[in-house]
């Protein structure tokens, strides 16, 4: 008979796959929250987020913007006295929320990540202007204008090429990707 895993175990399993990350050792000391440069924009600070996972508050975690507001700066990770890689945990939460297709509305992060991966699977390389089209619909009109201005500024500065490159052995590359994601879920 299948035993259902608790939410905290599910999250732990998403990291133990490649290298251990002892999130259950959290001391709730708050060093991570005090360090985090993005904390003021998060619904829950990193310390609270870890506490919520420990308490199996799955719905609350999935409704939080916290991990999508993490910039992966790893400052919390190098300071945590319990040796927890908090930045890696934030990635695991992003994956979990993508996998379940459940995230707070109005977030750009999930579409951005998905668009980015699609672009790379299609060409082997990343290219900012093409990438832009994958997330622009979510921007408000004023942001669109700002974005266009920024992009133009970049073009004027000669910083953007007009055509994306592709890698040469793209077919091999795509078959390689299929061996990792057999259903082609991301392509």
């Amino acid at each position: 008979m299948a035993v259902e895993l608790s939410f905290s175990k599910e999250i732990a399993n998403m990291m133990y796959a490649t290298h251990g990350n002892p999130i259950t050792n959290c001391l709730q000391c708050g060093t991570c929250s005090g360090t985090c440069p993005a904390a003021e924009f998060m619904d829950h600070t990193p310390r609270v987020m870890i506490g919520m996972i420990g308490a199996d508050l799955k719905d609350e975690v999935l409704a939080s913007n916290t991990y999508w507001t993490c910039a992966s700066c790893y400052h919390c990770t190098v300071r945590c006295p319990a040796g927890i890689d908090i930045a890696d945990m934030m990635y695991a939460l992003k994956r979990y929320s993508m996998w379940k297709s459940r995230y707070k509305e109005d977030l750009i992060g999930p579409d951005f990540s998905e668009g980015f991966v699609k672009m790379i699977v299609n060409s082997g390389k990343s290219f900012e202007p093409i990438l832009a089209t994958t997330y622009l619909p979510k921007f408000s009109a004023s942001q669109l204008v700002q974005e266009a201005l920024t992009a133009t500024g970049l073009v004027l500065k000669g910083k953007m090429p007009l055509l994306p490159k592709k890698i040469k052995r793209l077919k091999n590359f795509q078959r390689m990707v299929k061996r990792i994601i057999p259903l082609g879920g991301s392509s």
Partner: protein
Amino acid sequence: MKQYAYYPGCSLESLAKDYQLSTKEVARALDLELKEIEDWNCCGATAYFPVDEMLAYTLVARNLAIAEKTGLTDFVAPCSACFKNAYYTNAYLKKDPDLAEHINFALEEDHLHVDGKLNVRHLIEVILEDVGLEEIKTKAVHPLKGLRVAPYYGCQLLRPRKDHENVENPRFFEELLSAIGAEPLEYSSKARCCGASLIITNRRAALEMVRILLKDAIDHEADVIATTCPMCNVNLEVYQNQVNQEFGTQYSIPVMYFTQLMGMALNIPSRRLGITKEPVPKAQVPVPS
């Protein structure tokens, strides 16, 4: 001449062409032979990990495998995000045979194999460790006298490495700047995050993070901010206008790659370094170039 497997990364072909130009010029002047690996792919920056962890490692591993095939021992990346991805993927492959087996199964499709046996290094480390401060000093025939430079380390050049000499208060960037005759300034935000891809996914948060950095450098009377990463450079340079719009500030400060400043000191013409406007010390009459 020492040879390196060079991985430029996507940004150096688009947004950061000036970093690519200045890297090549400086390497040549310092007798470092950067051999670009063939048919490399995007390392994913920070965008693969939210989607699939194994895919993220595999895509980075393909580049490592291509580099291993060359027989060179050192893998060099000028972008901090590329560096961090390669450094950790290499380390995990070396210590986790199951991960390596899984990834090698996928790499077979491109006739590649990876062992995780490279020394993965950031360009600035290669320059500091393999060329050394003394030699840089000797070759800097046009020292950047009086130029106040804010060394900006950012995040992934240092973290999450815990073995690094001093992750919280590193000094190597300052030493490099002193060696080329510039004046490195002390300011507390040198390793604070620039917001990275939040500039796209959470603009308000990233602009605030950029604002704090610009303010700190400008309050300390920096003439220029020096970076080691395309993402940091773009966030700090291109988004200054938006910071000003958002916060009513009037910040205007040049942001340059450390290789561009080095190139100036090595007396390489600005044009070949992708420099459109040379920074000048505010405190004194500009030195004619």
